[in-house]
C-alpha cells in the first residue's frame, strides 16, 4: 500500500467520523424533558434513528477501512520481522 492509498483511507475514516460527530451533536440536542407524551415518543424515535445511523457509519464505513489497515500493518510487520 502506498502512502497516498493510506491517506485516501484516512480521509474516508475522518470524513465518516466527522459525520458521526454531527449526528452525535444532534443526539445531544434531543430534549427528553418535555411534558407531552407524544413529544417524548418522538424524541425516543429520533434517538433510535440517530443511533442507528451512527452504528451504520461505524460498521460499514469505519471498521472495514480500519480492518484493512490493520491487515496491512500486520503484513508489513511480518515482512520486516
Amino acid at each position, binding site marked *: *500500500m*502506498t*502512502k497516498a*492509498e*493510506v*491517506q485516501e*483511507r*484516512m*480521509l474516508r*475514516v*475522518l*470524513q465518516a*467520523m*466527522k459525520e*458521526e*460527530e454531527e449526528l*452525535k*451533536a444532534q*443526539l*445531544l*440536542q*434531543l430534549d427528553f424533558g418535555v411534558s407531552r407524551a407524544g413529544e417524548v415518543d418522538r424524541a425516543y424515535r429520533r*434517538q433510535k434513528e*440517530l*443511533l442507528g445511523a*451512527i*452504528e451504520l457509519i*461505524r460498521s460499514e464505513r*469505519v*471498521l472495514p477501512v*480500519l*480492518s484493512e*489497515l*490493520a*491487515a*496491512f*500493518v*500486520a*503484513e*508489513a*510487520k511480518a515482512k*520486516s520481522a
Partner: protein
Amino acid sequence: MTQNFSVSSAPIYFGELFGSAPVSRDQAEAARSLLAMFPDVFGSAAQAGQFTPTPSYLPAPPGYGPRSLEQAFETLRSSPFHHHHHHRHHCHGQGPNLDGMLMSLQVLFLGAATPVKASEIQSSAQTDKFAVHEACRTGKDNPSNLNNADHIKLAIYSELNRSSDTRGAYKALTAEELSKRLEEDYGIKSEVTTVKSKEGDELKALKFQNGQVFCDGAGDGKLDTGDYNFKGAIDDIKERYGLDDAGLEKVDQAMRDGATRQRDFIKTLEGLPGFQQLPEDMKPVYAQMLSGGLADPNVAERSFREAAGMLGVRQEGQMGGGSYSYALLLMLQAYQFAN
C-alpha cells in the same frame, strides 16, 4: 520493541473498539506499544512504558477543534452545577463546584460537552453593565462589551494585575502589550483597533475574535483596571460559578495551562505523519481524535464518562476517547509502513 498488534487479534480488537465496555488491559498495552514507536512525538514516558495523561487532556486548539476556551465557559454556564450555584447567591464555597469546573475545563475538549442553548446566552447586543468608567470620563459612554466572555474578563483582569505598569492607582498595559500577553498566556487572540464612543471619541481598544470589545475608557491610550468595573465583573463571575479567590486563581491557572498545552498540541499535530497533507477541513477531525485520548485510553475513557455524567450528557451510542486513539494510532502506523 514489543508489538502486540496482529491480524489474529484484529477481530477482537475492533470488535471491542466501538463498544461501551471499558478498554481492556490488552488493548491498553497495544496502544502503549504503538505509542512507543513514536517517542519523538509522544515523549519518553511512552517509550518507557509509562502512560502520561498529558496528550489525552490536550485541548483541541481554536481552529483545530470544536471546543475553544470560550465554548468551554459557555458550556459551564449551561451545566447543572453552574445552575445549582447560580440560584444560591450567597454560596461561595468551593466543594465539588471548583473541582467540576477545573475538570470540565480539562476534559470538555474530549467532545463530551453539552451544546449551549441559545436562550442561555446573554445577547452581546445588550449593554455590558460593567462597562463603566472607574476613573476619568465619568458619565461618558464606555463602548466596552464583554458580555458572555467570562474567560476574557478573567484573563484581562489577571494580566493587568500582573503588570508593573500603572496609571495612577490602576494597573495598566498598552493595548499592544495586553493583546500580546493574552495570546501568549491564554491563547486568546485580539486585534488592536479603535472604537467610537457615543460622544464621537476615538478610543483605543482590543477587539476579540468573538466580537467582544475592551476599550480604553479613560482615553489615555492605555488599557487599565480603571477602564472597566472589574471588581463588579469578577465578583459576578465568582458568584455565578460559586468560586472564592483561591478557586478563581485555580481556574485562571487552568486557563493558562490550557494555552501551554495548546501550543504543544499544535507542535505535536504538525509533526505527525501525513498531517500536513490532509485537506484543511479534515485537520480538525484528526486533531479531535488526537485530543480524544492518545496516551492512556483507560484514563481518557473514564474522564470522558465522568465528565459526561457531570454535565448531564446522554452517553448512549457515544464513542469514548480511547476508541479514537486506536483508530488514529492505526492510521499513523499504516502511514509509517506505506511506501
